[in-house]
């Protein structure tokens, strides 16, 4: 009887088997890790806007309050985007014919809204309410990051469910006193944990049921 296989065949077969096993593991690993990557969550993604509006200039520089433009943040689920009119309150005096503001003037002229591009987006089946968060000690920068430094706005957090849960399970680590909600420079103090617990009392937050599905999904 003749040999059907050369001596090297063993090595090849074993390598092939090991390889196949490895491939499977690698494939699964990719599938598992991918959703966590910025590629999937579009974290840090910068979105081109029709108007080169700089938060760094207006908030960081001029020190405008968030609520000057996002005026429904305290009483609506939707934080609100400024009507063209709001822009013009200043820009009918300042930079009246700056090229950069042309779209704004056109909007006012034609009565057509400025088509801003959404940056921080959650799926339609998630019902996030800005007002209730802002009223209960969750500050802007906690979720939106250092907007006052952003030339162009990017999505600062992953906005995944896991990320939401981090806070809904233990708000204490993020809560701020009422006067710091709109403070862009706020950073948690050393004893945040213990201050946070006090704030939970202060805001009367029912922490036990914050992870109920019906809190965010309907």
């Amino acid at each position, binding site marked *: 009887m*003749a040999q059907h296989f050369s001596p*090297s065949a*063993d090595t090849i*077969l*074993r390598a092939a*088997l090991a390889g196949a096993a490895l491939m499977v593991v690698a494939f699964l690993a990719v599938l598992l890790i991918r959703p966590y990557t910025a590629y999937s969550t579009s974290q840090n993604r910068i979105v081109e806007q029709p108007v080169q509006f700089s938060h760094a200039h207006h908030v960081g520089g001029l020190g405008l309050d968030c609520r000057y433009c996002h005026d429904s943040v305290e009483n609506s689920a939707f934080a609100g985007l400024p009507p063209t009119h709001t822009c013009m309150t200043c820009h009918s005096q300042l930079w009246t014919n700056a090229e950069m503001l042309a779209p704004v003037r056109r909007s006012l002229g034609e009565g057509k809204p400025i088509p801003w591009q959404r940056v921080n987006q959650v799926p339609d089946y998630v019902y996030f309410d800005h007002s209730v968060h802002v009223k209960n000690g969750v500050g802007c920068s906690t979720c939106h990051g250092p907007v006052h430094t952003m030339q162009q706005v990017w999505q600062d957090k992953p906005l995944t469910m896991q990320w939401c849960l981090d806070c809904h399970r233990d708000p204490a680590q993020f809560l701020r006193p009422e006067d710091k909600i709109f403070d862009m420079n706020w950073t948690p103090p050393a004893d945040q944990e213990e201050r946070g617990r006090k704030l939970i009392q202060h805001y009367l937050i029912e922490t036990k049921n914050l992870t109920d599905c019906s809190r965010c999904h309907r």
Partner: protein
Amino acid sequence: MTALLLAEFRDPETLIAAARRAREAGWKGLDAHTPFAVPELVEALGLPPARIRPIMLGAGVAAAVLTFALCWYSAVISYPLNLGGRPLNSWPTFLVLCFEAGVLAAALAGFVAFFAFSGLPRLHHPLFAARDFDRASQDAFFLAVQDPKVDAGRLALLLDGLGPVSVREVAQ
């Protein structure tokens, strides 16, 4: 590099007898090649016991425990949910999964262990070159001896009376 000798027989019984003799002769490097399992050979050739089942048991138990840990952690710690008022730690329902996982793990462990212990896969082996060895998987029963103090002559002498079909040396 000592020669590998093959003695071919027509049926398992003589092979067993031959194996016994070879072993009584105190020869080393004994093995047999048969088309189907001949359980007596284990004792005849004095093979060490196969220690696979303890491994399978270990793997199975480990998997079961891990599964229970997973169920318990995810249902009680990670995201406790009220499902029809059932207790968070509904351990009886976890057991089904533990069992399935255990069995699967044990089976996989046994499978892997079998290959590890038997040195397979081994596509290329000198024996395959031996004449008529292809019948080892069909209707021939071989006794293999690889012992420096043994040569074809002595082997034939030893097997005298058992009527091996042939005794030959395998090229290495």
